[in-house]
């Protein structure tokens, strides 16, 4: 048998049909649904008298526009149109009999955090969701990608997706990360290197020692942003860490089924001589704590650098950089760590997991948010929130002056009232710094949770290593 990549293996295991021109029908093991991209899909089913083919493989949770303030149980905190979407999801989940975690459920949270947490996401699966950051689930060695609403309807009706196979790309991060450097710095640095279109047409497999050393949380952070690099999906081969994470989760297999699953999962890796269409290698030691300076996730630089000039770029990027700098209100040559900020947002499906909160709290312990700043932590799920309370992290955040919120997407896309005002500048742990992403005219700098915490303390973009104790650095 010819050698295969991990992507090839998962693809082959889910192929229902292949037409002569290479158009394939791929079977979908898990379909995650949220309130914003699904109403039109359910409406389409109703209009055509269709049903959900596999409700037991379909999971729904409202996350994108639910309020995250502590008073959200009071429906009045939601705007009329948001309420309509959430109520539509409540009703659709009930009418079509799919698994549902309503706002009142402690397990509610961002769909990409809830899926793995509840054991819905497992190695070797195909996972889709009407949300581009579905790539997150690739951390488990699952082929996971975002789809549009028409495709949501297609999967609901047929449990399959029409697809053409992507090419194979390998991103290898060798060696070890330096202290203060995290999964977020890896994934941003890769995009900084390849550009936001560098992965277009590919499925990326991340590998190498630095990736293996990451926890499952860190791996999810890396895969989460594969889409920001243009890739259809990001993957990491499952290993002992993956199995340990999955074991005992509510919807993970048990007993003999667990054994059978493990036997297959252990075959899920890229064969030695597998063919790669593109390879990128980065030394873990060369990755620094980074921040974004512009309005594209590829606008990445080490925190020790300065704001670039448009002339530093080529072709269409010159104009794009000019526009970015204008939008961001930045002057070329300004050291990045002199840029003052107004707001700090810690959360999102990129960095809203327990490890992220621990990393931020480690920096904040015994420190205070700089006067006059707004800082908030929005845990990725109700269970992350509960665990952080139990570990005492919530107290550290509150004592430092952070708002301690309920779970949801919140200021990652600012569909709920958590938004930046025009010109307001934010240190954010989310994944997109597009114009207006966090509110019209709002300015976003992406970074790791530890870097965001450091920025909260100093009131400017900050090299987290300045605030790390001797012990932690050493």
């Amino acid at each position: 048998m010819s050698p295969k990549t991990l992507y090839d293996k998962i693809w082959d295991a889910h192929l229902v049909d292949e037409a002569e021109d290479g158009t394939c029908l791929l079977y979908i093991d898990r379909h995650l649904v949220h309130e914003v991209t699904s109403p039109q899909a359910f409406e389409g089913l109703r209009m055509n008298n269709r049903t959900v083919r596999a409700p037991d493989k379909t999971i729904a949770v409202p996350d994108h526009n639910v309020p995250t303030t502590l008073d959200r149980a009071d429906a009045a905190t939601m705007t009329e149109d948001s309420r309509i979407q959430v109520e539509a999801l409540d009703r659709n989940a009930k009418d079509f009999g799919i698994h549902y975690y309503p706002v009142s459920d402690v397990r509610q949270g961002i769909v990409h955090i809830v899926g793995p947490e509840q054991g819905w996401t497992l190695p070797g699966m195909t996972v889709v969701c009407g949300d581009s950051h579905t790539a997150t689930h690739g951390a488990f060695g699952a082929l996971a990608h975002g789809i549009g609403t028409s495709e949501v309807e297609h999967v609901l009706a047929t449990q399959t997706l029409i697809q053409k196979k992507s090419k194979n790309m390998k991103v290898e991060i060798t060696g070890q990360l330096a202290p203060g450097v995290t999964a977020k710095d890896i994934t941003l640095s890769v995009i900084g290197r390849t550009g936001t279109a560098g992965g277009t047409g590919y499925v990326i497999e991340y590998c190498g020692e630095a990736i293996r050393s990451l926890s499952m949380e860190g791996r999810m952070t890396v895969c989460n942003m594969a889409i920001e690099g243009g890739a259809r999906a990001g993957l990491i081969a499952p290993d002992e860490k993956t199995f340990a994470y999955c074991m005992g989760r509510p919807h993970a297999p048990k007993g003999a089924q667990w054994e059978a699953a493990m036997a297959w999962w252990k075959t899920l890796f890229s064969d030695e001589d597998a063919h790669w269409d593109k390879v990128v290698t980065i030394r873990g030691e060369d990755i620094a704590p980074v921040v974004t300076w512009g309005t594209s996730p590829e606008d990445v630089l080490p925190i020790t650098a300065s704001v670039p000039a448009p002339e530093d770029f080529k072709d269409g990027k010159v104009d794009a950089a000019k526009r970015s700098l204008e939008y961001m209100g930045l002057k070329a040559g300004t050291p990045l760590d002199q840029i003052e900020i107004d707001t700090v947002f810690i959360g999102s499906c990129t960095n809203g997991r327990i490890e992220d909160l621990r990393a931020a709290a480690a920096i904040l312990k015994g420190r205070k948010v700089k006067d006059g700043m707004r800082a908030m932590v929005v845990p990725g799920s109700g269970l992350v929130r509960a665990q952080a309370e139990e570990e005492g992290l919530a107290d550290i955040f509150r004592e430092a002056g952070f708002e301690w919120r309920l779970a949801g997407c919140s200021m990652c896309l600012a569909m709920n009232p958590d938004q930046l005002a025009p010109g307001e500048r934010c240190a954010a742990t989310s994944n997109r710094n597009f114009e207006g992403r966090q509110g019209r005219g709002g300015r976003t700098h992406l970074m790791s949770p530890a870097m965001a915490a450091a920025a909260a303390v100093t009131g400017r973009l900050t090299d987290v290593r300045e605030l790390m104790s001797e012990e932690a650095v050493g």
Partner: protein
Amino acid sequence: MEKFEKLTGVAAPLDMINVDTDMIIPKQFLKTIKRSGLGVNLFDEMRYLSDGSENPDFVLNKPAYRNAEILVAGDNFGCGSSREHAPWAILDFGIRCVIAPSFADIFFNNCFKNGILPIPLPQEQVDILMKDAEKGENARMTVDLEKQEITTSDGEVIPFEVDSFRKHCLLNGLDDIGLTLEKGAAIDSFEAGAGQSRPWV
């Protein structure tokens, strides 16, 4: 879905790279539970000033381009989120064809599902079309899907590639779901097999 066969119309030039889905349709307009009505908010933040009035400098507000049916844009068009509201807004405005050097994957897919034809072309050819589009409303371009050809206002012909299955669906206005449901037996037998080999799924 409406068929796409041959389209002759005004092309609007949007000479920007990395036009993302937040620019195409900002999130405050995602709260709808319908597919229609998003056209007025297409490119909202570039199209309107903060007081809500039209920005006269934005291409789609210029008299020549208010009825554009084709959009010519820069590299990596449609990057960002999976929101199908982006193609819905484009379609609702009246644009049925987008031409760019490259497209983000999900957006590209979403276009076909809504009767919009996205055409990736080499940069040099996009440059030619961009120039043609800049001539204004008398410069009508023709996009012929059957022949896979774009004809500029001066009669220059530029061929393009399109996936044969997608072309078939667009030409005939076919609904994907209906087509897939015809393969129900194949799905049944796949499910039966997978139920044996991977029962935990």
